[in-house]
């Protein structure tokens, strides 16, 4: 009888063993279909188990990382408030984890904030940027790397000394945004480009408002990637991006290798900047400058 039991166990095991690489996917199979068709809208209308799951994962009480991160980056005695009106717009379910576009929209009451920090809790490099503004900013966008499923949090320091935290849970289909090579030859041309080429574009938004988009060609090596010969590629990333115009500085941004290679940054300003310029410094101490490419005039 024991033998039969053993046989049955073997059969059961073989069934499980062959159920594929995603069989232990934490969020359950239903999630991607459920959420990614219209991600951020659904977030506000909880109507499925996956929403509950993401809510649980987002709850800072359940996070192993949050307290340490908070103490380290916002300060031990920081006054922290989890708010609904700071939104992170991005997909719920990520297929390509090396270049994940996201936009943080900042509510009117916080346009004149003091500092903004973007965090990815489950990344080996958790901090993505720390931004010090010199003017009102309405939204900020960037491309990031995701190592694994993770809560993403944006912390905005207001003028009363309170940190306003907006959160979003994202799930990653194939992990390794920080630890595998960024360029996928299946979908891209993987020629190493010139390091430090800066492109700045300005777009008009409604009522004189402006969007600044900038792109800096840079490998943004995380120091976690192994090349084809098995050697670790040393970390090499942009440390600081300074944006200004004729009227003075717009923002000073400390950056980390959790930004994608050839990072793209996006800033929405309520008023049009004049001759926007960018100054970049990387971890080798190299400096790169850009002057506005005039496109509309």
């Amino acid at each position, binding site marked *: 009888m024991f*033998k*039969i039991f053993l*046989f*049955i166990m*073997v*059969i059961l095991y*073989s*069934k499980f*063993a*062959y159920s*594929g*690489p995603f069989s232990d996917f934490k969020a359950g199979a239903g999630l991607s279909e459920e959420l*990614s*068709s*219209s*991600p*951020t*809208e659904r977030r506000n209308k909880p109507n499925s188990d996956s929403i509950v799951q993401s809510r649980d994962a987002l709850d800072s009480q359940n996070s192993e990382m949050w307290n340490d991160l908070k103490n380290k980056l916002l300060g031990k005695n920081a006054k922290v408030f989890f708010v609904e009106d700071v939104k992170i*717009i*991005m*997909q719920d379910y990520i*297929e*390509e984890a090396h*270049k994940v*576009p*996201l*936009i943080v929209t900042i509510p009117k009451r916080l346009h004149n904030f003091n500092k903004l920090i973007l965090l990815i809790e489950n990344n080996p490099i958790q901090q993505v940027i720390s931004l010090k503004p010199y003017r009102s900013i309405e939204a900020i*966008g960037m491309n990031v790397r995701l190592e694994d499923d993770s809560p993403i949090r944006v912390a905005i320091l207001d003028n009363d000394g309170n940190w306003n935290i907006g959160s979003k849970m994202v799930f990653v289909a*194939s992990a390794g945004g920080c630890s595998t*090579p960024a360029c*996928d*030859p*299946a*979908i*891209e*041309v*993987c020629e190493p480009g010139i390091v430090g080429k800066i*492109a700045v*574009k300005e*777009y008009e938004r409604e009522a004189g408002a402006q*969007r600044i*988009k900038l*792109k800096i060609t840079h490998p943004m090596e995380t120091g976690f990637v192994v090349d*084809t010969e098995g050697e670790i590629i040393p970390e090499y990333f942009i440390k600081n991006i300074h944006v200004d115009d004729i009227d003075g500085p717009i923002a000073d941004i400390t950056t980390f290798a959790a930004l994608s290679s050839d990072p*793209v940054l*996006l800033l929405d300003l309520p008023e049009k900047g004049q001759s926007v310029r960018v100054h970049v410094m990387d971890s080798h101490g190299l400096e790169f400058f850009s002057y506005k490419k005039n496109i509309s005039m």
Partner: protein
Amino acid sequence: MQYFKNIIFIFILLNTFQALSKNNFNIHPIEVSKNIYVFMGDNNDANPKNGGAISNTAFIIGTKSILVIDAGPSYLYGSKVIEIIKSYSSLPIRYLVVTHHHPDHSFGLSRFIENGTKIIMAKSEINRYVKYGNRLLKQLKNIIGEDWFVDTKIVAFKNKNIKFPINVNLGGREIIIELYDQGHSEGDLIVKDILSKTIFVGDLVFNERAPTIPHANINNWNKYISTIMDSNWDYLVPGHGKLIKEKEELLLTKYWINYIDKIAKKAAKNGMSPAEIFNKGIPEPLLKYKLAKETWIRDLPLLINKYEFE
């Protein structure tokens, strides 16, 4: 009790074999026209079930020799194809046309080289195959499992500078091979069988599923599809999906590539981020395509990136 044990034993036996035969391609050729056969790929993304055999492989038998179109994803697949072809005809497999370098079409080619088959492939695509092959292979192993790629190697092979179009005679069968460069890839090959008026177009045409645009020049691709529509054929074998008999079916590929290109250009012009576009979901008319979501999400940011700082 003995009877019961036997049943259990047989049950386990079957299960074990199922497990062992996981990495065996269960493919059967379909006869499209006399002496023309197609192995239909699984019209899906590469996954551990299909072993990466997602595109169509075909063979044409003449009175003297055989020509194969596309090598499939791996050495195992190539071996299986050769084995099956040999059961159909004892003639030598003289030519393999690799329509372009993407792994699902090219990675079986080392098996054909071993077989003494002459490989016909655009020069630009040979370069890409050699240059990116090993990295792509590693990625594929990660996605669908090492076992599918036993003995699969990226081989640097020589190919004399072929001037396309070229004519090949298989014995009583005239084949024309044409180059369509900078379209879907840097150099797609099209194979025409004059006798049966069958045309093999590789990934210049996708049937049912969403076309992928990673290395594409949309303008040229668009023109090429028009050219294909205007040319004279009764049967068209696309790179992915079912056999095509009506010219109108080519419009599906056209519609998708133009739609995604238009959206990407508009987004780039307005300074939109892919994050904002995804937020709107996939456009209604594109939902009917197979793998619409996956392809849309993968390709749109690439296109926006391409256009936004132009």
